[in-house]
């Protein structure tokens, strides 16, 4: 495996007085896809918020290429190459599809992603480029959200709950685009509720539980039982059903 691109060390985070993350250790290598799984409230989205600067973190607790980026404003972090596809897409309602995509280029780094290339990847978006972003179907909105993040030419793409509320065929179509990204050296972090999908699309999996890393390992090496234990806690007696937690 190549050298570490993004690293979190003993990362803690708070919402006011409430602690959300308790000493998270995390590594992401160049060209790798890592999945983060866990139940609701496990700290997955809080972790991504720390990586993007939306939630305050100690400077040295997060590093990109060895340089501390924890606690930097979101704009500084995106300029260094970390972009996020937020949970629920969150397109700008008053902007068209094309304008939404152009917003992603506000802090653009040099790189291959342009409007033309995005339209080649998702042809439906070109046909609907002048429509309001929020008038699209859920899957098409997700394409816009991914495209918006890609427009900054990131080195690390963070995807929060890509499959939320989408039909399985649409989820497959969206996840099928990931190898194109990692094939060009981009690293991807996928937060995913669906464990089967998470294991299929990633090389490594982190399982969060109550703000801590409960399990990590190679996606193809972790067993269903190991993940169930980490997901729900030892001795809970609960198990993961196929295709869904």
């Amino acid at each position, binding site marked *: 495996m190549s050298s570490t691109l993004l690293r979190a060390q003993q990362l803690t985070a708070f919402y006011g007085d409430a602690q959300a993350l308790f000493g998270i250790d995390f590594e992401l290598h160049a060209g790798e896809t890592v999945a983060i799984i866990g139940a609701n409230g496990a700290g997955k989205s809080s972790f991504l918020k720390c990586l*993007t600067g*939306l939630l305050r973190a100690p400077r040295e607790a997060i590093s990109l290429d060895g340089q501390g980026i924890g606690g930097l*404003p*979101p*704009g500084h972090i*995106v*300029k260094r190459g970390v*972009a*996020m596809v*937020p949970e629920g897409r*969150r397109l*700008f*309602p*008053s*902007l*068209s599809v094309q*304008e939404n995509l*152009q*917003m*992603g280029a*506000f*802090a653009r780094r040099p790189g291959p992603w342009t409007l033309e290339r995005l339209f080649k990847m998702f042809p439906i978006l070109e046909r609907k480029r002048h429509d309001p972003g929020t008038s699209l179907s859920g899957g098409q909105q997700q394409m816009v959200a991914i495209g*918006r993040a890609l427009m*900054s030419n990131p080195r690390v793409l963070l995807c929060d709950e890509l499959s939320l509320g989408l039909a399985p065929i649409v989820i497959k179509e969206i996840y099928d685009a990931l190898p194109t990204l990692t094939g060009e050296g981009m690293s991807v972090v996928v937060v995913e509720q669906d464990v089967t999908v998470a294991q299929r699309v990633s090389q490594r999996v982190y399982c969060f539980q109550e703000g801590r890393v409960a399990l990590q390992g190679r996606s193809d090496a972790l067993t269903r039982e190991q993940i169930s234990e980490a997901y729900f806690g030892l001795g809970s007696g609960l198990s993961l059903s196929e295709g869904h937690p």
Partner: protein
Amino acid sequence: MIETLLQGLLLGGLYCLFALGQSLMFGVMRLTNTAQGDFIVLASYGAISATTLLAVNPTVAGLVLVPVAFAFGYALQRFVLSGTLGRDPLPSLVVTFGLSIVIQNALLEVFSADPRSIESGGLATHSIALPGDLAVGALPLLIFATAVVCTAALQWLFSHTSLGRAFRAVSDDREIAELMGLDSQRIFALATGIAFMVIALAGLFQGLRTTVSPADGPLLLLFAFEAVIIGGMGSFWGTFVGAMVLGITQQIGFRIDPGWGIWFGHLVFLAVLVVRPQGLFPKTRG
């Protein structure tokens, strides 16, 4: 009747200038500036001071005042109003209400309660003859033309520029806009700066058209509010139409009885609130 409509439209032009800054600040920041009228009066006094102390004509005073107003608005947002923005609208209401009191009392202290106006050099009394024995004042016509240009310019800025896109994005979802690399504080400051440029023009024209005194602000705020709410919060052409409706209604009231004009405007405003509370053309869109 045609003359009444014409005078109403021209009066609406002034109200439009009163209201555009309010519409812009609400559209981008969801901030209701209750000191809007007092800032207009402050701008009038700025123009009065420039024309008397520096002995310059109103055009030069306006050319000086507009960039100064931009810088003032930018700094006001960056250092005072930025801390009041959030889900709760109360802090911004309280702070701008406080600014309103400060401005009124400061003007009273410096300029006294005596009404003052800007020497227009004959512009305020010059009129242009129209067919059918009609005549319109050159100054009201200039004010109306300025209102049209300002409305069109703001709508173009919002719809066709990257800054306008940024305005709409931070208005839609500030957190995600920051995630795209936008500095929302800077975007808000730019919006306030632009709003204050329009406020400066409104103050200049108000001082040219009539007399101003330190206590005039709340009434001007009321007209601005009524125009914005009739048109729909955050829509520039809606604000323009709202101002025209207000101006025409007041003129019809004045025509019936000189004491009825203002409250005729209030009646239309109340009717819109009851029938269509979101206004005629709500929310600025690209």
